[in-house]
């Protein structure tokens, strides 16, 4: 199939949104676009597996290439491997859910949906681009919509949060840019093309400079300690769909970049800096978890827990084993779905109770069984309950990390394991305080989820459970991709 469809559909949807006359039309058009995208994602998954089953072992499938700025050797080069397919599926799920939960956004509906779709387009483009230039292009496209989403439709100290987010992400992409330029000039014939660059082994000294730049740059997106501080503010002041997209999709851009660009292209650099990555990610995991314990605001709780959970992504990458990298990608997908669902639920609760303070809630299960149940499911998923996606991902990371016999990595792994207790503590604190216990007065008249909210939640839950019950399909999708990276790592200097 032609991958440009994945970019075209959002583009067309966005254009259509601008043409619509009233809010209702806007909603339905965006929903239509999002569902089309979801269908497309599944078609892609199907065709991809078909190709693989047919024995097509090329690293990238469905490659398409258009010349673009030939004088710089920039070409619009698209292609997917298992990892990208997984990420695309994730995006499609989150997008449609996000469109659904923001059904009753009344303020500047058109602009809101326009930006949402634009943001999703950036994500799709990022995941399928095999040319570092367009990869960067899409990476940055996604920033400004976030800024506006938070700044216009956000709550709390939104301007501050929006600024912080935009500037920190831009800072990240600035580092990425420099790293990319470094790679660009590393070869004889200058090129941004991922596959070409992968073919030529980038000189060591350039790897030493560019790997940290790229990793830190992408790390900003995926909340690499200590560059994570945009996460709590950004997530908590964003509108519901905004938070879902931020945590569900854009944080994954970073992880994907770390894996696909930094680690894949510069294995030596990765080996060199692996320990630092591991240390930072373990810090992020534990410290994020402990910081979460102290939060009072549901959104802050989820934001900080995202820091902790994305730590697993970086840990998986830093461990540099096939299993751990597979786990990292799984964790990206799982965390994407999970956190999107979590934010969706928080949004639903907030719309009804008009508070996000854990202390001001209680007994919601009585008045809104559906939302309460979803809250339980997502909470259990986030603390890694088997049968839900979180467990699979984290266990895979652990298994992969443990494959190193050296004590340092062992200890890192054990520390990471300990975090699941802390996670249990804060998650249970949050959900028991809100959903259980006696019903707070004033909440007697709360209503349960509406159809669109239910649909959104169910879609995401479906994803979570599909991974939790039958992880093998995701594993089979991702593992070969990780395998390729491992082969690149295996090549001696």
């Amino acid at each position, binding site marked *: 199939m032609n991958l440009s469809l994945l970019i075209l559909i959002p583009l067309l949807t966005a254009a259509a949104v601008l043409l619509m006359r009233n809010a209702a039309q806007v909603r339905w058009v965006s929903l239509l676009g999002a569902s089309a995208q979801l269908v497309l994602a599944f078609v892609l998954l199907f065709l991809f597996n078909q190709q693989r089953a047919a024995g097509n072992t090329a690293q990238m499938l469905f490659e398409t290439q258009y010349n673009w700025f030939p004088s710089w050797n920039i070409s619009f080069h698209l292609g997917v491997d298992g990892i990208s397919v997984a990420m695309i599926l994730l995006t499609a799920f989150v997008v449609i859910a996000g469109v659904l939960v923001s059904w009753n956004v009344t303020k500047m509906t058109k602009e809101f949906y326009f930006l949402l779709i634009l943001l999703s387009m950036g994500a799709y483009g990022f995941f399928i681009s095999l040319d570092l230039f367009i990869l960067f292009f899409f990476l940055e496209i996604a920033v400004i919509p976030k800024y506006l989403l938070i700044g216009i439709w956000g709550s709390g100290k939104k301007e501050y949060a929006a600024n912080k987010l935009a500037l920190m992400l831009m800072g990240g992409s600035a580092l990425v840019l420099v790293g990319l330029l470094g790679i660009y000039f590393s070869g004889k014939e200058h090129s941004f093309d991922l596959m070409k660059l992968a073919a030529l082994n980038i000189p060591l000294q350039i790897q030493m400079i560019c790997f940290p730049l790229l990793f830190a740059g992408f790390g900003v997106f995926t909340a690499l300690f200590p560059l*994570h*501080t945009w996460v709590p503010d950004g997530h908590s002041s964003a509108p519901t769909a905004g938070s879902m997209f931020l945590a569900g999709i854009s944080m994954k851009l970073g992880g994907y970049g770390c894996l696909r660009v930094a680690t894949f292209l510069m294995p030596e650099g990765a080996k060199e800096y692996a320990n630092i990555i591991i240390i930072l990610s373990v810090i992020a995991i534990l410290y994020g978890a402990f910081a979460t314990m102290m939060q009072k605001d549901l959104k802050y709780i989820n934001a*900080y827990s995202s820091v902790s959970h994305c730590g697993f992504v970086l840990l998986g990458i830093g461990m540099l084993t096939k*299993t751990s990298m597979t786990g990292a990608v799984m964790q990206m997908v799982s965390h994407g779905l999970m956190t999107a669902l979590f934010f969706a639920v928080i949004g639903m609760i907030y719309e009804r109770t008009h508070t996000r303070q854990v202390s001001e809630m209680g007994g919601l299960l009585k008045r809104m069984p559906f939302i309460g149940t979803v809250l339980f499911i997502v909470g259990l998923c986030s603390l890694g309950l*088997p049968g839900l996606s979180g467990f699979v991902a984290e266990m*895979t990371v652990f298994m992969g990390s*443990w494959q190193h016999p050296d004590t340092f990595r062992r200890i890192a792994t054990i520390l990471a394991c300990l975090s699941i207790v802390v996670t249990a503590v804060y998650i249970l604190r949050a959900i028991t305080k809100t959903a*259980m216990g006696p019903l707070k007065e004033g909440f007697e008249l709360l209503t349960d989820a509406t159809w669109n909210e239910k649909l959104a939640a169910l879609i995401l839950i479906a994803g979570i459970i599909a991974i939790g019950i039958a992880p*093998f399909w995701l594993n089979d999708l991702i593992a070969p991709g990780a395998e390729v990276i491992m082969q690149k790592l295996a090549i001696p200097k």
Partner: protein
Amino acid sequence: MPNATYIALIPLLPLAGFLMLGIFGRKYFKNTSGVIGAALLLISTVLALYTAYGYFFEYGKVDGVYQKLVPLKYTWLQFSENVSIDMGIIIDPVSVMMLVVVTFVSLMVHIYSLGYMKGDERFPTYYAFLGLFTFSMLGLVVSSNIFQIYIFWELVGVSSFLLIGYYYDKPSAVAACKKAFIVTRFADVGFLIGILILAFHSGTLDFNTLITTLTSPETEGYKSAAAASFMGVSALTWGLALVFVGGAGKSAMFPLHIWLPDAMEGPTPVSALIHAATMVVAGVFLVARLFPVFAISSPNALTMVGYVGAISALIAAIIACTQTDIKRVLAYSTMSQIGYMMFALGVSKYGGEEGLGYTASMFHLFTHAMFKALLFLGAGAVIHYIHSNEMKDMGGLRKYLPVTHITFLIACLAIAGVPPFAGFFSKEEILLAAYEHNTAIYWIALITSGLTAFYMFRLYFNIFWNAPSPLERAGGEVHGEHHGEGGFVMMMPLVLLAVGAAGAGFIPFGHFISSDGKQLNTEFHLQFSIAPVALGLAGIFIAMWMYKKQNNRPDKIAASLSSLYKAAYHKFYIDEIYTFITQKIIFNLIGRPAAWFDKNVVDGMINATGNGTKDISESIKGLQSGKVQSYAIYFLAGVIGLALLFIYWWT
């Protein structure tokens, strides 16, 4: 070879029940859900019994040894070519026995709950949760893969969490379920790391392969595991010890037992099912599952298991003597009995006569399931009647609850180890095993058995004799009088279990279950069993002397050994210690600082850069003075400066 499909159905039917009732229950099966659940479980029970029959009497035994059969197994998550999580079914004596126990007790509870939970607004949810639990527990016992067992382990934990927190609007229940989950979770981390270690060295997650690798010294896996050592202890021992930590957490072994008494916040049938008969023995089951590795490759780990078990048994028994909430008493007695099973494993060796402890432990697990479930259900009937858990609200109930009274008495006799009731036989074997291998543990066990008899009958007398019945006290109609003992659905399970509690002892257990699968003939030594029985009777009589009639002897005695009594009454302050560690240390010394650090230092740095830039821009605005002449000066200065720079330095 057994037919996998119907064995698979045993756990899957409850799962079906869970899904059906969980999703549609509230809408469609408001009242029928109980029956549906019970019916489904009845089927699985029958299947389980059929399986047991088939295994033990038809295909299980190959030239005198019970085989470990794996009729079903498919790869769930592949890590590397031979390391993978498989979903499978393993059929061996232990798992079959557990299948029977779990399904049977669970069925009893399902039926009992029909009456007990009648009219509860979340009736379907309750049965859904029961279904979920049963499914997870059954999945756990048939796991053929150590990671599979971990998966169901967690599921069991969460269903117990859900059931403890079933009355979710009761703050104490919420606190209890949270506590239960977190404590067991903490233990599970140990389990997880243990799995990682064992899997790394044995290079597999499959039980059979893992056990064979780690028990045969010539394999690479064994060598590496024995060679690699951390803090002077071999990796293998670490692995097993950590796995046992997981087991200890679930089985409420000291010092991870604190969640069990609070778990009694759940509905009483649930306590009977989960926190007495089935889930809490998962730890014992786990150790039994890995028993060859423990026994052959790492005796130290096994010894640890023994002592932990013994200590837990004793402490629990002491505490049980002082509690006044009847369910808590039962909870502690459960802990104590599980302690028995644990140290029975701990003192056992692998194979032949030496393996007596293993058989005994399993035997006790079996019998205990019967009478402890019975006790809880009986207590449930009492509570159902009185609407209180407190002994002081009870007394003289024998008139009002005859069936409960008799069955309860049988159970008490069984647990007290009075012949010919079930408890007697299993306990005998345990004590025998302990006596043969570890005297210290033997004495502890002996004392404990005396205490057991005492506190059980303290309970019994306090409920059914002692004070004038509430009727007299209330001087009129007792609340709950009108619905009597709760009718057939609640009595039938009691009776069935009572039969079990009375008769289970006569099963020649050694013939079926032994450490190495070979038949083990346990002969009965009269002279040996005198001491424990005597102690037991003594305990009973003391209890009778103290509690049969209302009097002030208990208070006197309590006063006389006040400090011990107080300590025991406060459960030796273990809860307080935990609270201190979590609240004061972890929250205050780690959580808050982390949050503060993030807010002020990390975030502060980021903001500082921003504000710093602003300040600089503010401070240099004088450059743009608006004086055209100063502009010119800067101009010329720039020219000359650059000129000098490049003429003199840069070249």
